[in-house]
């Protein structure tokens, strides 16, 4: 009975693992099945999204959502994150075939790896035990390392994969060390147990455990000072993979961090709050300053993602239900913005059909490809958080939560630093609109790219504000589920 209800709760994960294994067989037994496997993988992810949706809509929380004796929670919070993860994975699958067409057809391993990465992330966001957490994290990371170096013939891709692997392994080590300290000093690996054990005074060992765990997670979300790998990996990895890295794993890692911080370490908010505040402000500033000198669009967007993580962490620093809800709203908007801007980069092709990604290459894009330039400009202004574009709403709710939690100074510094970030976003617009056309980008684009770009641009346009009520409602439910333990 217990097992049955547990299995019912992890149905989406079961679907994904079975689909992954089956597709792996198809990939192994038939050649040139890349396209078919991609479509099937997207269908599997879509099915999994449908399976997790009810938990979000009903606002599931509490003991009923715990599977396997409290190791796994299929609550509304996890569902919110999972839907974001699955949807961005589907989008990354949709844009991939056209990209890989240049070197022959897409290989079937790509969708399979994406499936396993998504599965790992689903486990991460549902983890309520450090062991579950680690399994999910590593399942995701292993798939991601391979994905980063997926273009075997490209040196940059191989370099990206290697860098990601070495630094990722280091971060996993740090995280594992932190977990072992927490286990040693609390005697349990479950979040609930750790929470209870830490309700009193924080011992030195627990503090170190907490710091190491957060440092390991900061690496995964690419928060400063653990962000160094991001620009290199984002630049080197194939663009669809970069799109994936910038969206789904970010959601998973942020959601995981929120759960660890508010659930496992929830009684010691003062201990981690200052770390989060520092990481938030440092990410905003470093992300903004680092991007200024970049001439490669993917590198620029990598710094932009570091910058955005800073704003997301402000929501976490608030530590309230409103803060978590704001964080989730920001995540959803951030995913749409990242998808849109990376897909726009994917659509930049020269006359030979090769990808271009230099900032100079898009000079005068507004006269050669007006619609593409308009979409990218919307993304840039939106990332900069200029109203009336929807990116503003993400920053707005995050800062509102911070002000509500009496962190007015943090909000003021954060928002002032966001002006630095605005500089390079408007620089991209300047290059596209004010400069003389370079005439590099002439190639045609795929319908799937246009579809994703069109949908994300429409969502980021002022029309997006019509979504605020629905989005806010869902995020509130998810946040409530996360904070239910208290």
């Amino acid at each position, binding site marked *: 009975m217990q097992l049955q209800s547990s299995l019912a709760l992890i149905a989406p994960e079961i679907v994904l693992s079975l689909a992954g294994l089956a597709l792996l067989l198809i990939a192994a037994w038939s050649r040139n099945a890349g396209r078919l496997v991609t479509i099937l993988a997207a269908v599997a992810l879509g099915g999994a999204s449908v399976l997790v949706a009810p938990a979000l809509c009903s606002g599931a929380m509490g003991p009923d959502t715990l599977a396997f004796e409290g190791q796994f929670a299929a609550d509304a919070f996890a569902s919110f994150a999972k839907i974001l993860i699955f949807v961005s994975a589907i989008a990354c699958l949709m844009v991939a075939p056209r990209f890989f067409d240049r070197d022959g057809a897409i290989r079937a391993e790509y969708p399979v790896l994406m499936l396993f990465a998504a599965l790992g992330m689903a486990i991460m966001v549902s983890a309520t035990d450090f062991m579950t957490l680690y399994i999910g994290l590593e399942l995701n990371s292993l798939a991601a390392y391979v994905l980063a170096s997926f273009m075997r013939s490209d040196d940059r891709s191989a370099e990206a994969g290697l860098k990601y692997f070495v630094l990722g392994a280091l971060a996993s080590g740090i995280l594992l060390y932190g977990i072992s300290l927490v286990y040693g000093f609390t005697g349990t690996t479950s979040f609930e147990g750790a929470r209870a054990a830490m309700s009193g005074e924080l011992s030195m060992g627990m503090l170190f455990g907490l710091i190491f765990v957060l440092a390991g997670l900061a690496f995964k979300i690419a928060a400063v000072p653990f962000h160094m790998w991001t620009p290199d990996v984002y630049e080197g990895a194939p663009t669809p993979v970069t799109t994936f890295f910038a969206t789904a794993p970010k959601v998973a890692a942020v959601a995981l961090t929120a759960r660890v911080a508010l659930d496992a370490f929830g009684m010691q908010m003062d201990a981690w709050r200052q770390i989060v505040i520092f990481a938030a402000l440092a990410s905003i500033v470093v992300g903004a300053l680092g991007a200024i000198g970049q001439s490669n669009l993917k590198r620029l967007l990598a710094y932009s993602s570091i910058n955005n993580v800073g704003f997301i962490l402000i929501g976490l620093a608030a530590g309230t239900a409103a803060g978590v809800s704001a964080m989730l709203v920001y995540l959803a908007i951030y995913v749409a913005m990242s998808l849109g801007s990376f897909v726009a980069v994917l659509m930049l092709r020269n006359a030979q059909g090769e990808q271009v990604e230099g900032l100079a290459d898009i000079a005068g894009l507004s006269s050669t490809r007006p619609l593409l330039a308009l979409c990218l400009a919307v993304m840039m202004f939106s990332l900069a958080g200029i109203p009336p574009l929807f990116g503003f709403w993400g920053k707005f709710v995050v800062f*509102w939560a911070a002000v509500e939690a009496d962190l007015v100074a943090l909000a003021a510094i954060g*928002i002032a630093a966001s*002006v630095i970030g605005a500089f390079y976003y*408007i620089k991209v617009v300047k290059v596209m609109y004010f400069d003389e056309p370079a005439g590099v980008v002439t190639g045609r684009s795929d319908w799937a790219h246009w579809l994703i770009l069109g949908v994300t641009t429409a969502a980021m346009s002022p029309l997006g504000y019509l979504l605020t009520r629905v989005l806010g409602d869902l995020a509130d439910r998810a946040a409530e589920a996360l904070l239910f333990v208290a």
Partner: protein
Amino acid sequence: MGGFPILSLMLAIPLLAGIACLFVEAKAARTIALAATLVDLALGIVLWLNFDIGGAQWQYTERYELFAGFSYALGIDGIALLLIVLSTFLMPICILASWESITRRVGEYMAAFLLMEVLMIGVFAAQDLFLFYIFFEAGLIPMYLIIGIWGGQDRIYASYKFFLYTLLGSVLMLIAMLWMVNEAGTTDIPALMQYDFPPAAQTWLWLAFFASFAVKMPMWPVHTWLPDAHVQAPTAGSVILAGVLLKMGGYGFIRFSLPMFPEASAQFVWLVWGLSMAAVVITSLIALVQQDVKKLIAYSSVAHMAIVTVGLFAFNVQGLEGAMIVMLSHGLVSGALFLCVGVIYDRLHTREIDRYGGLAINMPKYAVFFLLFTMASIGLPGTSGFVGEFLSLAGIYQANSWVTLVCTTGIILGAGYMLYLYWRIAFGVQKNADAAAMPDLNPREWAMLAPIAAAVLWMGVYPESFLAPMRQDIAALDARLARAAPDGDADLAAGTPRAEAANAVAGAHDAADGEAEGAH
């Protein structure tokens, strides 16, 4: 008006027209833009005619709960009404000014302008704090594009400076707004205008708002973005910048800083006065030595805006009314001056004053218009400038005579730089052959300048039309400010009235009485 959503309609028309402009070629885009702005002007006039003077404070209200956290709430009082009418009045003129001078990417240009109109009307009509902020900030995007794409030589530097300067000013205001909403529990502007924030918090809130409005206004010393932006923007861009965008700062003070934080406003009164005095003198002197026409007018704008700020912070009815009239008048006059510059710039493609001269000879009609607007800028009685400056200075005189003394020099210096400019451009010998060969105004330019000239004279001769709609709102604001208003230094004490006339002599009086009686 039976609840007809006229304000939403005024927002929707330019928005839809702007989107349409993106998809059509140049000629159609111009026509669509002109038609849309004219329809909006007509609606603006309808708004004015149907405004119930002395009626409810907030009229034409609309409210839809469309969003989480804030609502789509519109409504105007007399102050907002006049600024909206000003915006809608200037827009068709801007479109006309760009009719021939803009040849590149006309559709996008018209779309940017129409979007700008949406946002300007939105700023003045918003009744929700965050809706206001969204409209207020959103103006950066079209203006950035207008300066950057269609601007002059250094347009990129100017566009960056404009964007980042004003953005940095505004973001702190957002944090202050969030705090206020948290404290007061409402995002409704009319409700917030009645809410008494604790004086200690007011200080910080006031400063945050001040950072934004002082940059927008612009006040010395954060005015430096303005000359760059003005000079580099295309003519119509300068008109909109000077005519309406600068008014957002003044509107911000009158709508937010003063009624919401009266104590803090009184506390910082010397800061505002000091900066305004500095602005009047310094920027007027800078204007005197300019070689670039547009830059000169840009600096004169800073000086005029300083008169607005002293008027606002005089804390009395005359000052507030004067500030409003200066804003309206400056919107018309500086807009018209930029148009005058545009007229000759279109012919000679230079803004350097020395390249012109003696234009009164070959362009007499132009010279007449230019003279009228020059005089209005100086504040000659009979023009709108006089009414506003006189009221503002009369208001500040009740509060502080020294500030009045310094600010009045602005009028003299203003006469200096404007007459000097006029002399160099319109009078003297025709030293440049190409300037001497320029043709006089064409019908399109007549259509641009004549309505503004009429409005300037109207406001100068019969300002009551403009004062009446806002009288009640200004009085309400004055009543709200009364508790915090600083004491004036004039110590005007009303003596007890004498029983009889001052020249009355006891005997003569009796005699007169007697005579009167005798006559009976």
